[in-house]
């Protein structure tokens, strides 16, 4: 589906922002200012931005752990995302979640989850919640090509179909689950055809084509909203970097494989579209420069954000008002538990 030119320029800017953000994240990780697992989405920008662009303001988004790009595309403040990666108080999860567990309810982004396919039942439940509340919206649930072989896929798709829930399952087929190629993990390579097992629609598109990504997602999301039918959208793309920053990403593929994919880099493709539509190189370079500046600003903001307060170690674990329930648990508790966990309060 053709995208109007000003919009396309904005989407290009988002894509560049994501690419620059991921590149910077890797640098910061190697500088030991980001820890844990850090999964980058460089190369997957068109799929991410195109599909997320099809979401309406009140639609909901749920993803796996490779979620920086989705958060940014959904409009989560880059400062808050970088601060989360830095483990700081102003992080979108207040430094509690890190790279895999970004969340911003104000943007309808319900996380960033780390257990492969664990987000699918949750997404199904969010869709159920929308239906029970009589809301017209839909849920977009991202998963990977490797996640499709988990039992949670099957149970979630079946439940969503039996209950007519408005959820689009976006299968990001980037060719590998860690080092395992799709054909070594899945009995069929056309993953979208698994939609047939649930009597729902399944589509496959070139995820590196932003217009195709947007168009297919817009259509399936509209169906989900209007007809309350779930569906499967398989987007074909490629992961440039390793599985996580810790993986060189060459044990299971060659440098040439990666180089070949980079030849039709999604950013270059959109850039070409924009140039053909008369946007000047200088204007496009300005877009790139703005992205660089935005990410530099995010790093500075993250850096300036304070560490979480150790007294608040247990903050948020339970709802406000829970402290009184736990008051009588202190006698005989393990060493230091009372001071570390309860002194600071649970429900704050």
């Amino acid at each position, binding site marked *: 589906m053709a995208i109007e030119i000003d919009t396309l320029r904005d989407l290009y800017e988002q894509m560049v922002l994501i690419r620059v953000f991921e590149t910077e994240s890797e640098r910061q990780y190697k500088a030991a200012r980001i820890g844990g697992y850090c999964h980058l989405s460089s190369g997957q920008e068109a799929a991410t931005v195109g599909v997320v662009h099809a979401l309406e303001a009140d639609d909901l988004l*749920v993803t796996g752990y490779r979620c920086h790009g989705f958060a940014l595309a959904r409009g989560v403040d880059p400062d808050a995302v970088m601060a989360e990666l830095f483990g700081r108080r102003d*992080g*979108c*999860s*207040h*430094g*509690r*979640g890190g790279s895999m*567990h970004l*969340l*911003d*309810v104000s943007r309808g982004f*319900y*996380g960033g*989850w780390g*257990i492969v396919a*664990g987000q*699918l*039942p*949750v*997404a*199904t*439940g*969010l*869709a*159920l*919640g*929308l239906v*029970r*509340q009589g809301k017209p919206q839909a849920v977009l649930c991202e998963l990977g090509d490797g996640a499709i072989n988990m*039992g*949670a896929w099957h*149970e*979630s798709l*079946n*439940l969503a179909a*039996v*209950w007519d829930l408005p959820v689009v399952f976006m299968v990001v087929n980037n060719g590998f689950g860690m080092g395992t190629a799709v054909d070594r993990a899945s009995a069929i390579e056309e993953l979208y055809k698994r939609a047939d097992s649930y009597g729902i629609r399944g589509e496959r598109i070139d995820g590196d084509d932003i217009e195709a990504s947007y168009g297919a997602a817009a259509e399936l999301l509209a169906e989900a909203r209007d007809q309350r039918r779930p569906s499967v959208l398989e987007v074909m793309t490629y992961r440039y970097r390793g599985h996580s920053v810790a993986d060189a990403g060459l044990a299971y593929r060659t440098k040439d494989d990666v180089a070949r994919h980079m030849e039709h880099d999604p950013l270059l493709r959109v850039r070409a579209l924009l140039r053909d539509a008369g946007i000047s190189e200088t204007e496009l370079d300005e877009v790139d420069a703005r992205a660089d500046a935005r990410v530099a600003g995010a790093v500075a903001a993250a850096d300036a954000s304070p560490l979480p307060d150790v007294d608040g170690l*247990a*903050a*948020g*674990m*339970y*709802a*406000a*008002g*829970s402290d*009184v*329930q*736990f*008051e*009588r*648990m*202190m*006698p*005989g*508790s393990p060493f230091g538990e009372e001071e570390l966990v309860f002194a600071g309060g649970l429900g*704050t």
Partner: protein
Amino acid sequence: MSAATAETGDVAGAQSGSAVMTYREALRLALREEMARDERVFLMGEEVGVFDGSYKVSAGLLEEFGPDRVRDTPISEEGFVGAGVGAAMLGERPVVEIMTINFLLVAMDQVVNHAAKIGAMFGGEVRCPMVIRTPNGAGNQLTAQHSQSFEGWFAHTPGLKVVAPATPADAKGLLKAAIRDDDPVLVIENLPIYKEKGEVPLDPDFVTPIGLANVAREGSDLTIVSHSFATVRALHVAEKLKQEQGLDVEVVDLRSLRPLDVETVAASVAKTNRVVCVEEGWPTYGVTAEIAARIQKACFDDLDAPVERVGMAEVPLPYAKNLELAAMPNEDRIAAAVLATLA
């Protein structure tokens, strides 16, 4: 008023007084009251609707509240427990029935790695106010795969709350408290206990606070600490030992496992100086291990004897009736443990 009328439900509107009803009926009453009180509350699980519930806890609710609020699910515990998690994140109040706790093993990831993590992992930005109801226990020759008690595993998990009512009144009061709570709460029911009868307050605002144990019977010679059906056994044993040997055994019914009311336990042990912990499941690395660990620290100078533990013999429960009986924490074994601890 009779359990029969409680069953038919005429009591739901009553504002006060109490009625004798079964544990099962008390749970149903709690569900009906909370569903009537709060549109966000809905029930889902296998066979909860058309079939009236595997153990009939939800009998009549489909008819009363309709299929949107009483949802039969496919056999997909991981799927529908997770559906509860997601719905709860949007502020709904799902009550998920798992036919027996044995089947929670296929949904562990959604309970332990999702529901339990939400509040803390996302920095308090979103909550998961859901209830999972499920019976533990053994005793009807259901054999190894269907006779287990895993509540200790959930009580081990920060982010979850776990309650295990032993009486019809607490079945109503704790289920209501769980439904009104803003965190994920497991309500541990029990198979043999469903038919137990007792007085249940009819006040729709009656709840049993989470985190408060109950001295179910006062005594000065020894304390039995227990939860769920083990408390029923403990009360029988206490009565029997009173009759037969004039012993005054105190019974502390934990009611909540996380939070755990150690204060009430410690106060009792400070008085009796001897304690036997009882559970339906396997004691090793079980619930009674934690109770004993807390007591030996909180009551170190009060104890006149080691904390004793009684539970199911540590084998995959066999089918044959004589083997099953031998393996259960039956009243004879509990009584013997009490006498040994007093010796």
